[in-house]
């Protein structure tokens, strides 16, 4: 209940930011090609995709993690272009992939890129573009009273230790492996048993978290693996980010993982995680953008499997993931294609400045450029909607 209330509050806050953004055009950052949508198109310089003049309704469905961001985007874009209605249903990443495979939506959304077998399941001749829109971090939350009774707020963990806990091998909070990383509170670590809370539903959050564990622990990789839903060696399942943070909150000695925003909302402490450079970094949108910047060179051409797990850089937070919009490369309806391209162009330029205020990490500039270039590949009837 509280989570819902604060989410509504942050939505309202986002809306205020949106309105404030409207009144001061100079305040928008990022490339200027986005322009003020109601004004005349920029003459000269890089062109921008035109919004069609008739009424258009775009429907999309998918990931729950970016739903709040997409809602704010849709609201703000709708203020400038009242003839374009965008409808987004947060049904989960897998649902988004299913919907775009069955062609029931105009665009899909997923926290995990489509796997090869999912691409193989598409109707013949269909090509899907992955466009990254935002970044999220997964943080390890815990609820722990120290041996002296006071709550422990700060904890350092590394990949091996987190894997050990979630494998069920590290079973008490005063385990030497945890104590070695936390010299300052080692004497206060209690003998409380560790109880793991994980997601019971399939989730992009689980995908990012288990991909991290599989990257840093070969034992995890061999015995459990990575994916949206895994066979957990220990612990209880709870549905949704809300469910996990609620489950961790209700009893002492519990540990779980959630999207960064939910840790902030629930007021639970999250662990600083040791990154590839050996530094302990707390989860934050800055740490995630640092991770993405550190991994720009390794960004693959088809945008899938962007490796920002355990990336290089001193400030990098190691458990981060892109969230994607999934589009048909060839748009059968020219008007819809035009509207979709214009919406995405706006989202990738002006829309990026909305992200931080509501807890998302904006795309680093080079990835933003790559994503914009990807929009040039959208076609209708074989010819590009937004030519280079």
């Amino acid at each position, binding site marked *: 209940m509280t989570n819902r209330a604060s989410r509504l509050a942050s939505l309202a806050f986002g809306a205020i930011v949106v309105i404030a953004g409207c009144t001061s055009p100079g305040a928008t950052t990022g490339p200027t090609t986005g322009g003020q949508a109601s004004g005349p198109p920029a003459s000269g310089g890089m062109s921008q995709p035109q919004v069609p003049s008739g009424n258009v309704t775009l429907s999309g469905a998918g990931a729950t993690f970016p739903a709040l961001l997409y809602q704010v985007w849709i609201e703000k874009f709708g203020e400038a272009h009242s003839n374009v209605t965008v409808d987004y249903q947060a049904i989960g990443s*897998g649902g988004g992939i299913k919907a775009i495979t069955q062609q029931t939506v105009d665009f899909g959304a997923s926290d995990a890129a489509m796997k090869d077998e999912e691409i193989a399941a598409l109707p013949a001749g269909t090509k899907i573009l992955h466009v990254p829109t935002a970044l999220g971090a997964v943080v390890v939350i815990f609820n722990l009273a120290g041996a002296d009774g006071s709550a422990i707020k700060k904890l350092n963990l590394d990949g091996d230790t987190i894997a050990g806990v979630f494998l069920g091998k590290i079973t008490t909070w005063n385990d030497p492996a945890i104590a070695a990383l936390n010299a300052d509170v080692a004497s206060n670590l209690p003998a409380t048993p560790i109880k793991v809370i994980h997601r019971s*539903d399939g989730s992009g959050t689980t995908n990012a978290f288990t991909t991290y564990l599989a990257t840093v622990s070969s034992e995890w990789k061999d015995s459990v693996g990575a994916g949206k839903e895994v066979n957990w060696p220990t612990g209880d399942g709870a549905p949704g980010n809300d469910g996990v943070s609620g489950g961790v909150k209700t009893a002492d000695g519990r540990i779980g993982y959630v999207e960064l925003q939910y840790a902030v909302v629930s007021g639970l402490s999250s662990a600083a995680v040791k990154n590839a450079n050996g530094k302990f970094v707390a989860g934050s949108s800055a740490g995630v953008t640092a991770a993405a910047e550190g991994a720009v060179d390794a960004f693959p051409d088809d945008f899938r499997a962007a490796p920002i797990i355990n990336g290089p850089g001193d400030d990098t937070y190691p458990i981060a993931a892109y969230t994607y919009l999934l589009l048909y490369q060839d748009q059968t309806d020219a008007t819809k294609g035009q509207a979709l391209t214009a919406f995405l162009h706006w989202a990738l330029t002006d829309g990026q400045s909305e992200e931080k205020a509501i807890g998302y990490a904006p795309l680093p500039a080079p990835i933003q450029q790559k994503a914009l270039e990807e929009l040039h590949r959208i076609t209708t009837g074989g010819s590009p909607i937004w030519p280079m």
Partner: protein
Amino acid sequence: MTSATVTAAARFGRAASRVPDVVFRSGSGVLAWVAVGILGLLAALLVANSGQALAKFGISFLTGTTWDPIAGIYGALPFIIGTIASSFIAIVLATPIGLLTAIFLAELAPRRVAIPLTFTIELLAAIPSVVFGLWGVFVLGPFLSRTVEAWVVDTLGWIPIFAGPPFGVGLFTAGVILTLMILPTIVAISRDMITAVPDSQREAMLALGATRWEMITNAVLPYARSGIIGAVILGLGRALGETMAVTMVIGNRPQIPQSIFDSSQTIASQIATTFNEASIGLQTSALISLGLVLLVITMTLNVIARLLVWRVAGPQGTS
């Protein structure tokens, strides 16, 4: 028939027509068959879409204990046991409580107590299951783990199925939540059945010098027996299929529970929580197979219940 038509025509002051009769009979007949048709379509859909998983695992789908989407191994046994065990706990708790409540409301309580009490109990059925679930997570679970579960573990913990540790999350908490959810069904129907027992039965018993207790156990309950069994079966049906409240308190752990305080997982909860994100292909097919298993379990129980009612009350007995 003729005299009834004449009376109706006389009362409404117009000529009798057979048209409303025909329309009503065919219309309601079609609707009745639509329900059967939908059940048929549902079963056909489940069978068609579960083919991939059932073909791959065969009977081992029912006996397998591993559910691993990464490795592509799907076994349904932990879910089947979780579903039956949580519903069984609910029925064991709800049947005596519900029956005693119904007897009190129908036979013992004065009207000014019975009416508001009945209304309140029936109101329980109107509470959304997600609210029960939230209450289970934040209030009932922690309360049970401190009180009932702690006591049972201390006194009966040497019996394996009552062994601890009690976390307040698991089969037992799910069973208690389900008890509360099916109680209104059992109470309402049992009460109606008891009220419907003809007064001549009671009077005959009392005339023989019976006490109230003897009247209820010897005259009222035997007469209402088949209806009460039907009420319990309806409650069981709801417990088997309940999803949201269960998923929030059962721990969602697909293991074979050793104790009633262990975390577990039910079929309905597993389908509801993982279907959206399930990958197309084997995993989706395995989840649909789970749905088919649940349908078979519910139908089997309904058939058993029907046979039970017939045995108790003869073929004309209704639930």
